[in-house]
């Protein structure tokens, strides 16, 4: 009895170690397989062990000149692969530990074997690291001591020892024992792969926020040397150039989102007026065709704009044919009233689609209300104004609150495709600014800071809108 309790405690440590081992396979900063400066700085054990061609991408010259033997790199690849397989096996063992006694006992086998395989992988990489030290051209190859290998060895040894200890501590398997996992853990294990995907792609990026505190240049690694503290946060507000950029960008963002908010009633009006058309066939056709633009990408919207408004587009050729102008003009290069134009394109794309939710709401209104109003002598517009509009207001308020919460997220697609050197001052919104700053100019740290501010403010706005909704309607929107 007491032994089992000890085993249970050990299991907690074992599971944590398994998770840590798996995670560390994905972190480039502690990649022990990076034994040479020629291996990319962003590669992790996982990338090293899954793609030999990616691993040896920069080694073509090193191989042909004999600076590095192919065997060395194959050892690195094999070692990484062993570590991946080994730690995956220990993780499988950890999953089996959620089952019955027999399954637990069985589960120690993949744990022990996996840990042993991972250890072999570690030694293979260590051998390769020692081997590469003797390269004839250390300046080019930049051999490195993989100090982080100790960490992996420690983890593997711990897993090995603990698994073995658990195997001894667990009671013997009886003859009638069966492999069985409790329902609640069974369901959890089925869910686990998807949870892992979610964590890897949605939570792991949060680690990237640490770049905001470093002087990071693409391809470098983070270390105590380039730790910058709050430098970029101060820089953003103190540097006159970035400060004026930021002011301009925020003004654009708020202006265009604000115009969107101010015209959000249009889709409601669209729906109300559409429902006034009694010819169902016509209504059907209108609805089908006006919703199509919502399903094409912004690039295609730009293609449409291009076909209609560019130098040799529809409008130009019409005007030329009519003799109004001599040669075609590119209306897309005209940078006046950019905010309004963006709003109009947004409406062209979204109006019909946004109206659908209101049309559904209108068909849900009690017809007796209209009949009663008719009897009381209400005209068509009175009915629209006094019955339809008030019935739609709750829907409108929800959508409006959501739009307010998303005021900073106007996306970058639309503004990226319509951007020209002439209108960039009035069109750059926050999302586009972050993209250009980070991806195009390589200012990773600074753009991360801007992105952080945006994320945090967005969440605050969302919860604020939610609170307002709770107070006003007694219902939350998220």
């Amino acid at each position: 009895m007491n032994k089992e309790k000890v085993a249970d405690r050990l299991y907690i440590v074992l599971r944590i170690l398994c998770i840590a081992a798996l995670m560390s396979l994905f972190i480039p900063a502690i990649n022990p397989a990076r034994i040479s400066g020629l291996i990319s700085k962003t590669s992790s054990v996982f990338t090293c062990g899954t793609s030999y061609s990616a691993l040896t991408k920069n080694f073509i010259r090193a191989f042909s000149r004999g600076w590095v033997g192919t065997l060395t790199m194959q050892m690195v690849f094999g070692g990484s692969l062993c570590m991946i397989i080994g730690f995956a096996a220990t993780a499988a063992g950890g999953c089996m530990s959620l089952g019955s006694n027999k399954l637990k006992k069985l589960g120690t086998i993949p744990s022990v074997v996996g840990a042993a395989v991972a250890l072999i992988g570690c030694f293979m990489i260590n051998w390769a690291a020692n081997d590469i030290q003797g390269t004839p051209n250390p300046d080019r190859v930049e051999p490195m001591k993989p100090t982080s290998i100790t960490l992996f060895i420690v983890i593997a040894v711990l897993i090995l020892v603990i698994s073995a200890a658990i195997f001894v501590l667990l009671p013997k398997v009886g003859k009638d024992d069966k492999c069985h996992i409790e329902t609640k853990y069974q369901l959890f294990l089925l869910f686990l792969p998807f949870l892992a995907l979610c964590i890897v792609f949605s939570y792991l990026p949060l680690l990237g926020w640490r770049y905001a505190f470093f002087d990071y240049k693409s391809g470098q690694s983070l270390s105590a040397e380039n730790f910058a503290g709050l430098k970029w946060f101060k820089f953003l507000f103190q540097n006159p150039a970035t400060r004026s950029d930021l002011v301009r960008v925020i003004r654009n963002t708020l202006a265009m989102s604000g115009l969107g908010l101010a015209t959000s009633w249009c889709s409601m009006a669209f729906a109300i007026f559409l429902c006034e058309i009694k010819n169902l066939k016509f209504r059907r056709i209108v609805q089908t065709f006006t919703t199509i633009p919502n399903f094409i990408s912004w690039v295609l919207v730009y293609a449409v704009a291009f076909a209609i408004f560019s130098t040799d587009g529809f409008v130009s050729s019409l005007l030329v044919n009519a003799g109004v102008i001599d040669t075609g003009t590119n209306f897309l290069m005209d940078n006046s009233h950019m905010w309004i134009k963006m709003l109009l394109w947004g409406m062209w794309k979204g109006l019909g689609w946004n109206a659908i939710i209101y049309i559904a709401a209108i068909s849900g209104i009690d017809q007796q209300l209209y009949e009663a109003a008719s009897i009381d002598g209400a005209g068509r517009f009175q009915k629209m104004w006094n019955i339809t509009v008030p019935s739609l207001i709750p829907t409108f308020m929800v959508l409006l609150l959501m739009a307010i919460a998303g005021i900073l997220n106007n996306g970058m697609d639309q503004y990226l495709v319509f951007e020209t050197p002439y209108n960039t001052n009035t069109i750059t919104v926050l999302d586009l600014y972050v993209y250009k700053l980070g991806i195009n100019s390589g200012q990773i740290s600074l753009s991360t800071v801007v992105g952080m501010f945006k994320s945090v403010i967005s969440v605050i706005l969302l919860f604020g809108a939610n609170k307002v909704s709770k107070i006003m309607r007694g219902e939350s929107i998220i």
Partner: protein
Amino acid sequence: MAMTKQEKLDRKAEALYEKKHKNRYRKSAGDRTFDILNHAFFLIFTIMCIFPFYYIFINTISDNDLVRKGAINFIPRGIHLGNYVSMMNVGDVGTALMVTVGRTILGTVLMVLASGFVGYLVTKQEMWGRKVWYRCLIITMYFNAGLIPWYLNMSMLGLTNSFWAYIIPGIVAPYNIILVKTYIESIPAELEESAMIDGASYMTIFRKLIWPLSKPILATIAIFGAVGNWNSFTDSLILMPDAPALHTLQHKLYTYLNAATNLKSVMNSGSGSVTGAAAANVLNAKTIKYTISMVTVLPILMVYPFMQRYFEKGIMLGAVKG
């Protein structure tokens, strides 16, 4: 709007009644003006929505020389399909089309399978820590780390310049999971209970019972997923800088719309592959741009009218919450 039979009958009766009593319910002059203006507005807006696609289309099938002169505005002339043929042969549009079709099919299938399965799992109260894990999934809809951390994460995982960057991150889609979960919860619990009593396992119940029953919602998320995959552009733009062969059709279109140099090379190789008889139909900058646009938009234009009810169902489902 889908209408029930009864509603249709009612409408008919109403119309008949109005016809009979036309004199009594004669519309006022103001009413009539409003009706005319209203019809006119919707007619114009509909034309505005659909005409650009028609305009692009007639320009891709008309005589290329006339197109270059800007003579094709309303009616196609000198119809030929050469542009589409040459477009597939020259340049890298064919590859981009393959990549886009591939990611649309694979990405959508995996997303639907995963959403169906996870949506079912999270309805199971028995699951260990269900509430916590479910919240973990849902929060990601409202919060993200931002573009740059996302990019750094993807490159850390070795997903830059790799086809899998299109597929793997899209497998777990929280919003779709919510939709499926809500739908499954509306299926009577007795069905599942009786299957349980008959000794069916969770997997069997999912395969034989839940999956077939939730087909309507799965079709809806499939269609939205497919459109999203087909239209996605930023992931290709940001994650594939060194792998032009992996650019999606939207990305290709963007490049062609912007770059003049690109067009020259295509035109040169294009004119080589076009034989003498079709010499008049040599691709020019305008037709190339239009043809790629059409290739990119055509699947959506063709699929949309048939799938419209699924799309509309989708937005109505948007009202549900986790």
